[in-house]
Structures are given as C-alpha cells and as structure tokens.
C-alpha cells in the first residue's frame, strides 16, 4: 500500500499511469453521459407532481453532489500537501478546483432554472438553503483559485491554498447550518423541488446513478488531464519529460 502510494507520488509513474487510464475514462464518460441523458430524458417516467421538470434532476443532483465531493478531495489533497509535502497531491488539488467550480456553477444554474418552474416567477429563491450553500461553495472555490493564482512560487501557493481549503472544510458545515437556520426563520415557500431527490422512484434511480457515474468519470478524466498539464509545466526541464516528448514526437 505504502509502496504504491509513493510510486503514485512519482511524476513519471503518474504520467504513464494516466496515459494508460485516460482513453478508458474517455470512453466510459462518453457512454455513461449519452446513455444516461437519453434514458433520463426520454425513457424515465416523469414525476407525477412535477411532470417533466424533474428531468433536470439528472444533471442537477450529480453536479451538486460532486461539487461538494470535489471540495473534499481538494481539502484532503491539501492535508497531504501540508503533512507529507507530496508535490503530486498539490497538483491534484489545483487541477480539481476549476472542475469543482464548473460543477458548482452547473448546479447553481440548473437549480435556479428548476426553481423557476417550481416556485413560479423567480429565478433566484433566497430562501432555499441548498441553493444558498451552493452559492457560498462557489465563492469558496473562486477564493481558492484566486489564492492559488496569486503566488508566483508554485510550492508556496500550494501550501497557502491548502490551508485555505482546510479552513473552508471546517466552515462548510457551519455555513450549511447557519443558512438552514436562516431560511427556516424567513421561510416563505417550501422547497419541495430540492428535497424530492431523497424520495425517488426506482425507475428514475438508475438513470440518475448512471449520470452520477458520468459526472464522476468526467471529473476523473479532466483531473488527470489538468494534473498532467501542471506536471509538464513544473517539470519541463526534467529528463523524463524530455524523453517522453521524444517518444511522443516519434510516434
């Protein structure tokens, strides 16, 4: 286990491994997205109360779910960066941030459009705790990326951003509960639309699982791709990169 961990931490090994994994991930992403979308849009039954609007769920729920998981990945990678100073962990965190921010953005847009049909004439409902938490998560992502970009020294940026990510993780539950308390205080409309995912019919569950897989595969793929970019940038003068480029040229 530990040997494997250290091997994974070595850049050339990571690069070769990801080269082997990426085509498979691409195929898996494509298949799960296409099948999941068609299944969700055309074959899954519609909810008896929300009619076809519930089909937004197939992208909203996975995006919202993974927007939070990716922040956890960043924080965990940050902890690894701070404790063991494994360079690759920091690159994984930096590579994940833009993907997580995009997922958060998707969750916000789809959530507000879903809300538009559920709540009536408003695109933005300030009383929905999940929408608010997601918005704050989006801010946290932006702050993390801004801090990462502000330092010229990559190693220092990595460790500063790691501290911020850990502070953010401690804060996320507090933010969530405070937002929930706040909305229960000012509650006007109920937010059935968002809670609906919890009590979901089996026939709608499978396309949802498939879309979750699709979002996960997509994340993994882009994470590998972005990490490779960052690796190439920071190690461009190392011998293994040059050797690999020669092979790449020959092929």
């Amino acid at each position, binding site marked *: 286990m530990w040997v494997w961990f250290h091997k994974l931490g070595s850049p050339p090994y990571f690069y070769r491994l990801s080269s082997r994994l990426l085509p498979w991930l691409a195929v898996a992403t494509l298949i799960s997205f296409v099948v999941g979308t068609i299944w969700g849009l055309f074959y899954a039954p519609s909810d008896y109360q929300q009619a076809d609007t519930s089909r937004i769920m197939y992208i909203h729920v996975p995006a919202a779910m993974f927007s939070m998981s990716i922040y956890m990945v960043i924080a965990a990678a940050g902890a690894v960066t701070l404790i063991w100073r494994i360079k690759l962990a920091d690159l994984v965190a930096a590579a994940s941030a833009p993907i997580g921010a*995009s997922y958060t953005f998707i969750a916000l847009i789809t959530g507000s459009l879903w809300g538009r049909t559920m709540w009536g004439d408003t695109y933005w409902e300030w009383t929905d705790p999940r929408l608010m938490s997601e918005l704050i998560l989006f801010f946290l992502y932006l702050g993390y990326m801004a801090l990462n970009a502000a330092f010229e020294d990559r190693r220092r940026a990595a460790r500063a951003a790691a501290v911020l990510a850990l502070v953010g993780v401690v804060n996320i539950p507090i933010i969530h509960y405070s937002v929930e308390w706040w909305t229960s205080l000012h509650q006007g409309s109920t937010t059935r639309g968002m809670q609906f995912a919890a009590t979901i019919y089996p026939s709608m569950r499978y396309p949802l699982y498939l879309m979750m897989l699709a979002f996960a595969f997509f994340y993994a793929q882009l994470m590998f791709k972005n990490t490779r970019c960052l690796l190439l940038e920071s190690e461009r003068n190392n011998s293994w990169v040059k050797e690999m480029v*020669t092979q790449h040229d020959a092929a």
Partner: protein
Amino acid sequence: MTLPEWMDFGKWTPFIWWCYVVTAVVLISIGILSYRKEHRLLRNIAQQKRREHRGAS
C-alpha cells in the same frame, strides 16, 4: 407538421433544455480547454528541446 412529443416545448418547458444546454457547454468547454492545453505544452517542450539540440550541435 406536428413535433415529436419529446420536442414539444410546451410540455417540457424550455427550462429543461436550457439546463442540458448550459451543462453541455460548460463541460465541453472545460474539457476542450484542458485537452488543448496539454497538446500545446507538449508541442512547446518539443520545440524547446529541438532548439537546445540545435544549439548544442
């Protein structure tokens, strides 16, 4: 001409379409960005290497 049922906007409301369109645009564009970035980087490094090679010989 009647639209197939699944294209009927009145039934589905355009919002569903917008959701899928926004998602597709966001995902495809970040995907293209990182794929192109790696491609460019590799080309860049290869060029640099060739230049160094020429300088050495």
